[in-house]
């Protein structure tokens, strides 16, 4: 008996079920990603990315802290952390301005989860790293420049 699989099915988020269906070849992977914000992840410039999230022109905020190295020796693995002190933070999005796919990750923060996430991203070249935060229905943004000595994208 595979309990994990049961849990996945029971989870009811639809994600797991769709994934399994896609794996089984019933539906194309593209369809399984209806929830995935295609427009945002395909965005080629910051304005398009903001628009895809429905953010318009987010206001700069000093209440968003980005933890990232000033100089990243290896662009393939750049640790980036975002902490938002804005009340009612609902979403955190990490964007790298000069990457071909600028939106790296988007986190939905439900109530009870702290607005404090860390991950690792690839950076093709020296760029500004943006953290966009949706708090109480409004969008805010902060940025930090990270210098890359060795690119992480491309051969």
């Amino acid at each position, binding site marked *: 008996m595979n309990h994990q699989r049961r849990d996945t099915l029971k989870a009811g988020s639809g994600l797991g079920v769709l994934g399994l269906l896609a794996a089984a070849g019933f539906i194309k992977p593209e369809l399984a990603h209806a929830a995935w914000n295609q427009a945002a992840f395909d965005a080629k410039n910051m304005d398009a990315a903001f628009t895809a999230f429905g953010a318009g022109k987010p206001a700069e905020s000093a209440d968003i802290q980005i933890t990232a190295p000033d100089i990243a020796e290896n662009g393939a693995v750049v640790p980036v952390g975002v902490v938002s002190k804005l009340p009612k933070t609902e979403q955190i999005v990490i964007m790298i301005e000069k990457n071909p796919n600028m939106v790296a990750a988007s986190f939905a923060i439900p109530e009870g989860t702290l607005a404090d996430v*860390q991950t690792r991203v690839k950076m093709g070249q020296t760029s500004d790293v943006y953290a966009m935060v949706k708090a109480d229905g409004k969008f805010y943004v902060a940025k930090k420049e990270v210098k890359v000595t060795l690119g*992480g994208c491309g051969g």
Partner: protein
Amino acid sequence: MASPMRIRAAAKDGVTEVRVLMSHVMETGQRKDSSGAVIPAHFITELTAKHNDKVVLAAEFGPSVSTNPYLAFKFNGGAKGDKLSVTWVDNKGETRSDEVQVA
């Protein structure tokens, strides 16, 4: 099926800190192999973390996330022995779910 995730969940002073290390190639679709053919994109698109049955984090990833993605976050509540599960789905429809007990 992809390799298992390494998940650590530790409760301290009413806050549970979760760290997840996934095993995934996270291919961007930008790179080329030695013969010049583009290596197709293959990356995790969605990730859901649950504490017992409550979603504590839902994430969407793009190809800019590093190979073998790392993720850390914190949520209020959580006690020793609680169930914490993480599930991801990638752009090829592959999925993986792992579960640990909060320590």
